[in-house]
């Protein structure tokens, strides 16, 4: 599947006026945006701004209070369990710390979705697993257990599992968090390669500036549950909005200690492993 062919179609994902609550606390207060096919769409924002929550809603892991999330023409908030599962087979999710099953080898982790869903013959699965692992640079790790891998390798293995079924869309939560700069940069290259070779659309949550500068096509910035910026990297860097400028200039928040405690500033699990 080539990038050009898919660009003709409309947006692959459309989020309209998404509102979510955590208990009584509002997390997202009406967020709207579109993601085009083949794009690397980056969601940024400070800790606790609702990035991870947004990602969980877009992948159908949580359901919103109101609003639409349209995947390829289907509003996933209206689907029942079975229909949602069918949509989820067409998206890959790579988790912050890999999300690998600890009781299986890396190879079996990648093979799992292929065995369960894939319309691939059993005879091709071992080669396909090795192919995907080579794509993410983990060819030698096939027979290792997840707890024998480093943090960066776990993320790569998680990515290999996410692309196992050749999904058109991959969600990636914090690809570079907790990695050294070399590893992080390698992972960015990998994302760019996969987009170019396989035409995958990436939706990435991150707050690593270097990584944003390197890979992003468009950026959505969230602050306290609202979208305060949507546009390209160049637009973001020349933006006048104080929050956006602060983010790109890496200036600390004077009230950082209080931010997590104000209503709406719900603390999420972020960053470090």
């Amino acid at each position, binding site marked *: 599947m080539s990038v050009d062919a898919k660009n003709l179609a409309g947006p692959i994902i459309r989020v309209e006026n998404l509102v979510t609550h955590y208990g009584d606390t509002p997390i997202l207060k009406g967020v709207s945006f579109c993601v085009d096919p083949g794009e690397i769409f980056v969601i940024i924002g400070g800790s606790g701004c609702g990035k991870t929550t947004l990602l969980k809603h877009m992948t159908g892991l949580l359901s919103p209070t109101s609003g639409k999330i349209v995947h390829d023409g289907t509003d996933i908030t209206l689907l029942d369990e079975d229909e949602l599962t069918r949509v989820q087979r067409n998206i890959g999710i790579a988790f912050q710390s890999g999300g690998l099953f600890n009781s299986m080898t890396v190879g079996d982790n990648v093979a799992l979705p292929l065995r369960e869903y894939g319309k691939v013959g059993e*005879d*091709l699965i071992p080669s*396909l697993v*090795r*192919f995907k692992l*080579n*794509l993410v640079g983990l*060819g030698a790790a096939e027979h290792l257990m997840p*707890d024998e891998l480093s943090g960066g390798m776990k993320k790569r293995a998680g990515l290999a599992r996410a692309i196992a079924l050749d999904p058109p869309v991959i969600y990636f939560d914090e690809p570079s968090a907790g990695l050294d700069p070399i590893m992080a940069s390698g992972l960015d290259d990998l994302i760019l390669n996969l987009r*170019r070779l396989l035409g995958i659309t990436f939706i990435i949550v991150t707050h690593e500036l270097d990584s944003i500068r390197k890979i992003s096509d468009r950026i959505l910035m969230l602050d306290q549950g609202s979208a305060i910026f949507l546009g390209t990297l160049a637009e973001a860097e020349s933006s006048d909005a104080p929050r956006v400028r602060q983010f790109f200039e890496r200036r600390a928040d004077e009230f950082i200690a209080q931010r997590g405690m104000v209503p709406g500033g719900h603390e999420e699990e972020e960053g470090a492993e």
Partner: protein
Amino acid sequence: MTPIRIPVPGELTQETGRALHRSAREHALQKGGVLLVDLSNTRTMDARGGAWLLTIAEWAKARGGELAWEGASGQVAEFMELVEPGLKAALRKKPRRVGLLENLGDATIRATAEVREFLNLLVDAIYWTILAPFLGRGFRWGLLLDEMHEMGVRAVRINFMMNFLLGLTIAMLSAAQLRTFGLGIYVADLVMIGFARELAAVMTAVVVAARTGAAIAAELATMKVQEEIDALRGMGLNVPQFLVAPKLLALTLVMPCLVSLGMLSGIAGGMIWGVYVLDIRPDAWLNETLGAAKLKDIFQGLFKGFFFAIVIVLIGCHNGLRVEGGSRGVGLMTTRAVVQDIFLIIVVDMMFALLFYYVVD
């Protein structure tokens, strides 16, 4: 030796890859031979097509030959560059066979190591539970009450039910035999002695092993998996002191209470059967029960309960701390803890029976 050349069509996909694999296998590839894949006409390839190339490479390796390629350009060239290490190293390693003696030796070494670990834990636990508090080296008294509540108070209902039902059952079974001789009243003696010496202690221990033993193993195993144990050690805190000692003291204090409750519940169960089914007057039944009650028997039950408590806590902690791997390891170790608990309860029970048979009685 000239390489065997196979051309690849314009698009390398699952279908064309399969066909390619089939045609490659028709060639008689010899040892040292080269299978040359011609990619000069190939414009695009996908992952499944690429996977077939790996399959072909593996087949070539297995026959002592190798796979090479030429003419890749554009997207195909990038793909090939990424998977090149995979294509070069394509042969899967066969697992080494392990002989009987090797297995035996391995098992022995592991068993000895485990016993040594357990003995270490035992010594540490005894030190931090009994000696350390008197030497002023700290004991988490606050946690002790929490643990006693969790292990004791919250086990009261299930422990009552289990022993009550067992009492009822024992009364039923023995009455069927004794009433034919008109000796129904002796069921009271039987239930009293049975529960005092044996049944209350064992039944309670089984309940506690399933509740508390499993909980301890799962808690410690999860802590180990999530690196909380390492965090404790890193802070210079002692694991036996911090985690094992409060649990050990709590259960050894609570267990005699639970066993006493078990005795009362069992006797109550027996009495229900005696009064309502065997039609024996309650005061006669009670009189008979109290006549059979000997302090020596009751102490025997409580004493065993005390040792069962030690077994349950230490086996739970031991297995929890030995966990390897992730969530599956936690499940395995919890199961192992409960199985070992129940096995050791029966073994310890038997040893006490021997002791009382030859020494005390």
